[in-house]
């Protein structure tokens, strides 16, 4: 078995740090020195004020559920969920009091509650045409 994993983020700049140890992967934020807002991922310009004076920050792995829905039908297009569709939660997860991030939710749909604590769950979504593992993220209950 190779000791080096060939892994890439599903979106460039989405994660902070190496992707080898998924238990230690964080989402990356870009904090603006001009207005103080934080955007998701490694950004060239602040989504609020347009400033390029941004610093990367590793976002905390814990969050709370701000709101959610349950997707009852298979989403259109190139959806990479389970081959046999199962309704799933999608939510806005509030992280570090600065950002609400849209993400798929792992808890059973009946267990979803606004305000519930959640934890980031980075995972291997698929292997791409170059053999690299593509890393995506969801949020799970604290125990998951």
């Amino acid at each position, binding site marked *: 078995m190779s000791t080096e994993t060939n892994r890439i983020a*599903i*979106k460039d700049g*989405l994660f902070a740090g190496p992707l080898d140890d998924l238990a230690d992967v964080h989402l990356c934020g870009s904090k603006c020195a001009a207005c*103080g*807002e*934080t*955007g*998701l991922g490694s950004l060239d310009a602040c*989504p*609020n004020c347009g400033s390029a004076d941004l610093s990367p920050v590793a976002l905390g792995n814990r969050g709370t559920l*701000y*709101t*959610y*829905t*349950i*997707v*009852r*039908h298979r*989403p*259109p*297009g*190139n*959806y*990479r*969920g389970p081959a046999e569709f199962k309704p*799933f939660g*999608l*939510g*806005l997860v*509030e*992280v570090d*009091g*600065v*950002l*609400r*991030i*849209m*993400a*798929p939710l792992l808890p059973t749909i009946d267990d979803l509650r*606004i305000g519930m604590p959640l934890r980031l769950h980075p995972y291997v*979504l698929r292997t791409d045409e170059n053999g690299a593992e593509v890393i*995506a993220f*969801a949020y799970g209950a604290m125990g998951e």
Partner: protein
Amino acid sequence: MNVSNVYIIGSGYHSFGRFDKSYQQIGSEAAAAALSDAGVEWRDIQAAYMARMYLPATSGARILRCLGATDISVIDIEAACASGGAALLQGMMAIRAGDADLVLVAGTEKMPRGFMDPSMIYSPWQIELGMSMNPAYWSMRAMRHMHEYGTTHEQIAMVAHKNHLNSVHNPMAMYQKEFSMEQILNSPLVCDPIRLLEICAPNDGAAAVILASERKVRELGAKGIRVAAVAHTISRYSSDFRCPAETMSATMDNLGPSEVTAARAYEAAGIGVDEIDCFEVQDTDAFCEIEIYEELGLCGVGEGGRLVQDGQTRIGGATPVNMSGGLISKGEPVGASHLGQIVELVAQLRGTCGPRQVEGAKTALGHVLGAGGNCAITILQK
């Protein structure tokens, strides 16, 4: 600022629905109907604007050439669900600038069935993770509103019930059918808490108006409906969670797009919401209408559910909303939706709506809101 008046002297439409016809046929039929209603000829039109989102480049020219070859300026306009408002704004400005006295503004769309093509709006990674369903975004807003203000499933269903009931008398609507509260509440969930009978369908359709300067109105001896204001905006930073947003700020509390656009429209028209007699608003889902009541100022924040429950937004209520049946009944041919609202509001102000007439309506407002926080509001006065 002292600006000249612009009037609508004719309106027309092609029904909203699904048709075995080309978009050129659908669009040109609406344009011809508007010309006929105005009593003017296509060759008299000095500029034309065509709102569309899912049609190919130069659709406006391809549609309007069906009325006869021309050498006027014909421009396609796209601003998502607010495309029609953006087109109307351009037409109004052309007249105010003194560049034209007679302008055609139309919207046309022909869309595939079911969910809209996600690659038009979403990034590939959002599609892979299942974040590419527009109703999911509306539903998350609904869920939060229910949590914060106690808005109920029944109140959301009441919006759909009211709009489906209003549609029964509207030949423009795709569904001209009443549904009971029980049928609505038992229809399948699409994205919780939003159900199938509480959601609009993308479809085909077209609508058009003829705009005229004050001078032209006098020359023709026409009876125009005055365009008191047209405002178009995109949402301020993190003020609206609508597709294809990835995040919201947890610290910023900017005014939402409907509030910002309404404030501009009210100021331009020099009136307050209390002076408006009837409304056509974006009801892509039933919850959305509740939130828009609040953002237009029909009621306080958190009181939208109660407003529909108390019957205030029915025809005959204090502030009737979506007399046409709304997009829930008509469907949403994106480029044509706002001009479809304008066709309804012109008919309301002319007093020709029959069973869905708002008695004595003198001032009317149309509102659309969609992807990217594109919002447009038009205010018309008799």
